[in-house]
C-alpha cells in the first residue's frame, strides 16, 4: 500500500510538471496547444536512449545529462512546432499541434534503428542522479527527486510569469494587436512560451523514463496531451497552484478504482469513463477551473484567447460582458507596468 501511495506521488509530480508547462503555453500564453505528448515523448526517449547506450557501453549513468539533453531536444521541438503554427489561433492551433504530436509519435513508432519501434525500451538499469544511486525497490528516492523538480519548475515559472516577460505575455494573450502596438515582439513571446513549455515537459519525460525504467510509444498518444490540458483547465488557467492541484486530482481520479481496491471488479474502461464524466461536468458547471486566475483589480477585463473566463469575479459570462476597448486599455496598463 505504501508503495502504491509513493507511486501515486511520483505520477502526480510528473503530471504536475507537465501541467505547469502546459499552463505556461495555454494559461499564460493563451495558445491552445495539444502537443504535450510530443514534448514528453522526446524527453522520455532521449533519456531511454541515453540510459540504454550507457548500459551497453558498460558505464554508469547520471540522469543530470539526460535532464539537460531532454530539455534541449524538447525545446528544439518546441521551436519546430511553435514557429510555423504562430499564425494560427484557437481550434486551428489545437489541430495543428495535435497533428505535430501524431507525426512525432509516428516517427518514433517507425524509426526502428533508433527507437526500437513499437517495442520501445524496457528493463533499463536504475540511474544515478548527481552521483546518488536510485534504488528501484525503494521509491522514496524517486518521490524526492520528482518533487524537487516540481518545486524548481514551479519557482522558475512563477518568477518568469511575474516578471516583465510574464506581463508582456499577458498582454499578447489579451490583445495581440494592442500588445504589438505597444512595441511587444509577439513572435518572440509566443515562440518563447512554446520553447520554455516544451523544455520543462522534457524534464517530465526524463523523470518518467527514470522511474518506469522502460518506455513505449503507446504512452504518448494524443489522449495524453488532452489529459494534461484537462489538468490545467480543471485547476484553473493561468494559475500555477491550480495546475498542480489539477494534476493531483486527475491522477487521483484515474487511480481511484485501484486506490479503493476495486480494480479487480471494475474493468479498466470505468476509470476512463469516470475521467470523461469529470471533464464534461466540469466544463458545464465550472469552466473557469477550481482556482480562478489571479488578476489585478481592474474593472471588466476581457477573457483570454485560450478560453479562460471571467473578470475578477470569475463566472463564465465575463467574455460576453466586456468590450474590446477595455481589454486594450488593460493590456496597456500591463505593459507600462512592466517597463517601469
Amino acid at each position, binding site marked *: 500500500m505504501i508503495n502504491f501511495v509513493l507511486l501515486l506521488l511520483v505520477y502526480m509530480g510528473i503530471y504536475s510538471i507537465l501541467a505547469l508547462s502546459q499552463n505556461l503555453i495555454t494559461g499564460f500564453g493563451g495558445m491552445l496547444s495539444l502537443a504535450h505528448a510530443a514534448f514528453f515523448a522526446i524527453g522520455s526517449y532521449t533519456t531511454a536512449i541515453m540510459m540504454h547506450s550507457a548500459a551497453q557501453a558498460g558505464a554508469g549513468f547520471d540522469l543530470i545529462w539526460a535532464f539537460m539533453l531532454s530539455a534541449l531536444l524538447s525545446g528544439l521541438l518546441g521551436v519546430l512546432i511553435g514557429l510555423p503554427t504562430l499564425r494560427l489561433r484557437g*481550434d486551428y492551433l489545437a489541430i495543428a499541434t495535435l497533428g505535430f504530436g501524431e*507525426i512525432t509519435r509516428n516517427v518514433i513508432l517507425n524509426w526502428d534503428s533508433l527507437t526500437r519501434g513499437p517495442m520501445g525500451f524496457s528493463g533499463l538499469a536504475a540511474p544515478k542522479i548527481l552521483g546518488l544511486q536510485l534504488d528501484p525497490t525503494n521509491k522514496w528516492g524517486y518521490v524526492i527527486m520528482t518533487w524537487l523538480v516540481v518545486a524548481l519548475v514551479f519557482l522558475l515559472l512563477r518568477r518568469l510569469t511575474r516578471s516583465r516577460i510574464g506581463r508582456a505575455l499577458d498582454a499578447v494573450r489579451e490583445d495581440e494587436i494592442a500588445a504589438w502596438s505597444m512595441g511587444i515582439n509577439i513572435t518572440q513571446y509566443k515562440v518563447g512560451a512554446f520553447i520554455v513549455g516544451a523544455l520543462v515537459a522534457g524534464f517530465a519525460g526524463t523523470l518518467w523514463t527514470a522511474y518506469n525504467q522502460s518506455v513505449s510509444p503507446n504512452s504518448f498518444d494524443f489522449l495524453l496531451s488532452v489529459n494534461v490540458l484537462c489538468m490545467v483547465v480543471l485547476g484553473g488557467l493561468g494559475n500555477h497552484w491550480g495546475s498542480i492541484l489539477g494534476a493531483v486530482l486527475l491522477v487521483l481520479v484515474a487511480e481511484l478504482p485501484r486506490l479503493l481496491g476495486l480494480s479487480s471488479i471494475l474493468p479498466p474502461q470505468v476509470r*476512463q*469513463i469516470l475521467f470523461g464524466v469529470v471533464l464534461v461536468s466540469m466544463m458545464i458547471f465550472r*469552466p473557469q477551473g477550481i482556482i480562478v486566475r489571479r488578476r489585478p483589480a481592474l474593472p471588466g477585463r476581457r477573457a483570454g484567447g485560450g478560453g*479562460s473566463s471571467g473578470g475578477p469575479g470569475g463566472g*463564465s459570462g465575463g467574455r460576453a460582458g466586456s468590450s474590446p476597448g477595455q481589454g486594450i486599455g488593460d493590456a496597456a496598463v500591463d505593459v507600462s507596468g512592466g517597463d517601469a
Partner: protein
Amino acid sequence: MQHLVNGLTLGGIYALIALGYTMVYGILKFINFAHGEILMMGTYAGLFTYNLLRTGLQGPALVGVFFVSVLVAMVAGGTLGVVVERIAYRPLRRAPRLAPLLSAIGVSIILMNLAGFVFGTKSLKYEYPFSNKPFVVGGVSITPNQLLILGVSVVMMVLLKLFIDRTRMGRAMRATSLDQDVARLMGVSVDTIISLTFAIGSALAAVAGVLIALEFKVYPTMGTMAGLKAFVAAVVGGIGNISGAMIGGVLLGILETFGVAVLGIPVGLKDTIAFTVLIIILLVKPAGILGKAIREKV
C-alpha cells in the same frame, strides 16, 4: 489508375465523415471531437442489426438486410448525435471556446470506453452481403465493395447538397450558419436547426462507419483515427464549406493512396501524410482550398 480507384474509395469515406465536422463547424464554430465515436457507435448498431437479421438469408435478401442495417446505423448515429449535443454542448453555447472543445473530448472518451466496456475490445467483422470478387475493367480491378462505397457516398452527398440548397430546412440551416441571432429574428428555430445538423452529420458518419467496417473491422477505437483524418479533410477543403469537405475528403484519400503506392512512403507512416498535408494547408492557405480568407478585425 488502380491507385486512383482505391484513393477515390477511401476519399469517399473521408468525405462523408468530413461533412459532419464541417456542418457542425459551420453553425457552431467548434470541432465536434466526439464525431468519430458517434460513427463507431452507429457502426456497432448497424452491425448488431445485420447479424441479428441475416441468419439463414442469402442473395438479394441479404443485400436488403444490409441496407436495413445501414438505416438502423443512421438512425442510431443521428439520435446519439442529437443526445450528445443536448447534454454536452448546448449548456456551453455561450461559454468560451475551450469549454465545448474539452467537453467534446470528454464525450469521445466516455463513448469509446463505454463501447469497450459493453461490446468488448475485440474487433468484429461485418460480413459481405455479396461475393466480393473483383471485376477487372481495362487492367483496373474494382471490387463490388468499392463500387458500393463509391455509390453510397456519392448518393449521400448529392442528397445532402439537394437538401441544403433546395429545401426550407436547408435554407434555415444556411441562415443559421451565417448569423444565429439574425436567423432567430427571422423566425428560424435555431435549436431545432442545430439538432438537425447534428442528426444529419452523425447519420452520415454512421453510414461511413458501416462502409469502413466492410473494408476493415469494427472496434471501439475505430472512430478516432478516421475522425481525425476526416477533420483534416474538412480543414483542407475549407471548414464550414460542404463542397469543400467533399473535395478535401477525396483529395486526402487519393494523396494517402498515392503516397504509399507511388511515392513509396512506408505504410507505417501513412497517417503522417494526412497531418503533414494539414500543416502545409494551414500554413499556406489557412482557410482551406474553397475557404474565403476572413480579415482579422483591428
